[in-house]
């Protein structure tokens, strides 16, 4: 699943952008050292292939829902970890730009979640050891499923963490986790099956493709574990630093923000759904971190009078912008669209 801009805070977004750009730089440098010239058009065209393939849906047996190819693992298998990562990052970039999948700030998170885990961890540390050299169909199958599941679990968990640390959503950590992990387990299995299928099909029809392309990287080699740990530590440090900055950031009194009125009762008209959920929570205890907040959360306070100003101002601002837009449109239409 993709992370979205709206759920992201700048610190978390920037952190993962730094991580992703770092990873891209790292992979690029590695590729430059041992560059096979064929690789650049090949990466681009294969990325285009993954992009196009993602539009083809298939029905998942048993559920009736439709699935599609993710592609991170497949790219890693065919191109090796570095080229595979770069190709996957580019697919996600195009998706973010052309399909507005997630957004541009969240792209950093998505490249990390959907690219780094499959190419830098799952492929070298899981797929390659299981598959070994010249694997048969069964090994490919097992290797793909385990790798895909692992990669997607890590990716899903990252989304949950990113949402949590951003603090824009009320979704409790536990609930979100309970939803994301099982769903992505299923998605991971499907991804593994499909990847294994395609690798198997191609190995059978044109064996030299798979062997030739991935021959660049010995199992796990080149992706130095030390580098990976360094990146993760850096990530932790930056996120930690970013978090404390975020926590202490105090919007000053002039900004129009909301005061949570201490002690105000629940809104009567919404009693139905909320109390039903509360009952479920008490009965099943499935959602450990569930909590209904009725107390102030520590934001700055403001007087009620500002509320009306804010709303009036909002209406005016929107009206002005709309008028400006329509005005410019009209002028351009009349002027025959001169620059």
């Amino acid at each position, binding site marked *: 699943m993709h992370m979205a801009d709206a759920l992201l805070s700048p610190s978390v977004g920037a952190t993962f952008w730094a991580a992703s750009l770092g990873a891209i730089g790292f992979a690029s440098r590695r590729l430059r050292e041992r560059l096979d010239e064929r690789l650049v058009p090949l990466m681009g065209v294969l990325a285009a292939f993954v992009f196009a393939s993602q539009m*083809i849906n298939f029905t998942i047996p048993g559920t009736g829902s439709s699935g599609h190819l993710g592609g991170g693992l497949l790219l890693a298998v065919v191109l090796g970890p570095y080229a595979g990562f770069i190709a996957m990052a580019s697919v996600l970039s195009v998706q973010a730009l052309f399909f507005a999948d997630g957004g541009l700030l969240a792209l950093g998170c998505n490249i990390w979640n959907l690219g780094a885990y499959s190419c830098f961890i799952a492929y070298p540390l899981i797929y390659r050891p299981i598959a070994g050299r010249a694997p048969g169909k069964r090994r490919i199958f097992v290797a793909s499923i385990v790798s895909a599941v692992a990669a997607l679990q890590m990716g899903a968990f990252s989304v949950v963490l990113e949402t949590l640390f951003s603090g824009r959503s009320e979704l409790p950590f536990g609930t979100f986790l309970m939803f994301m992990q099982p769903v992505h387990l299923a998605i991971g299995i499907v991804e593994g099956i499909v990847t294994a299928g*395609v690798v198997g099909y191609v190995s059978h029809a044109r064996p030299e493709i798979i062997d030739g392309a991935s021959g660049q990287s010995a199992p796990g080699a080149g992706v130095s574990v030390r580098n990976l740990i360094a990146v993760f530590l850096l990530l932790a440090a930056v996120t930690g630093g970013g978090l404390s900055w975020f926590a202490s950031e105090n919007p000053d009194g002039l900004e129009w923000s909301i005061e949570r009125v201490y002690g105000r009762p629940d809104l009567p008209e919404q009693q139905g759904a909320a109390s039903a959920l509360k009952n479920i929570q008490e009965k099943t205890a499935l959602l450990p971190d569930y909590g209904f907040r009725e107390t102030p959360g520590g934001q700055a306070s403001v007087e009620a009078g500002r509320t009306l100003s804010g709303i009036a101002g909002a209406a005016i601002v929107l009206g002005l912008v709309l008028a400006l837009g329509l005005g410019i449109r009209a002028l351009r239409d009349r002027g025959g669209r001169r620059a």
Partner: protein
Amino acid sequence: MSFDNAYFSVGFLDRLSYQDTFVHRLDARAKVIITAAFLLAVISFPKYEVSAILPFSLLPVLLMTLGDIPAGFVLRKILLVSPFAILVGIFNPVLDRAAALEVLGLTISAGWVSFFSIMVKFTLSISAALLLVATTSFPGICNALQRLGVPGIFTTQLVFLYRYMFVLMEEAMRIVRARDMRSFGQRGRGVRVFVRLVGMLFIRTMSRAERIYNAMLSRGFVRGDIPQLGQHRFALIDLVFMIVALGLLVLFRMVPVTGLIGQYVRGVFAG
């Protein structure tokens, strides 16, 4: 989104990006930087902010109108991708029930406010991304990224991706149509057939990559970077654009324009 719709919308957005307007002619680097700053500014607003973010809508509106981008297209795309944001955001009003404001007798919970905050941020950020592509050709964006420091290997293959994604989408569509014509209802839409289709497409893609590489060699390419023709130079107008845009971004982020306008208007009416 069905294949055909996806293909059409990518193609439409792509064609928009090759129009020739004032906005299109601005330096791509400036547009990339401003878009990034815009996104950062919008996303940086705290959880419960709604009205102070609204003035930011000025930038997308200006880009749309000056860049001849149909508003309907942008709005439709936003609507199309909104379900996910709504799905996650809707938990806010459900879970965060503390009353926050009273407006004209109505009590609005904090959860709803944060939900609207998410939706406003969502709308603005999606618009910004779309409008960046719509007003700057994709290769232009890649070139800008490379000049701003993104590794050349990444940007070069990104351009290749772009060049061939339409070709590959068409190939994929043909294969899918062939499948659909011969599968009645659900038969043939399963994983087995999918794997075969994708496998075929993959092999064809590898062959194509070989031919492309051969074509490159045939026209004298040997090794190294792909030769560049010449770069757009940063002009005064680009600088002016950046200064004005950044100024507006800082203004809207730091000063609660909406609130001030509202207060002023109320003041006028009150007294």
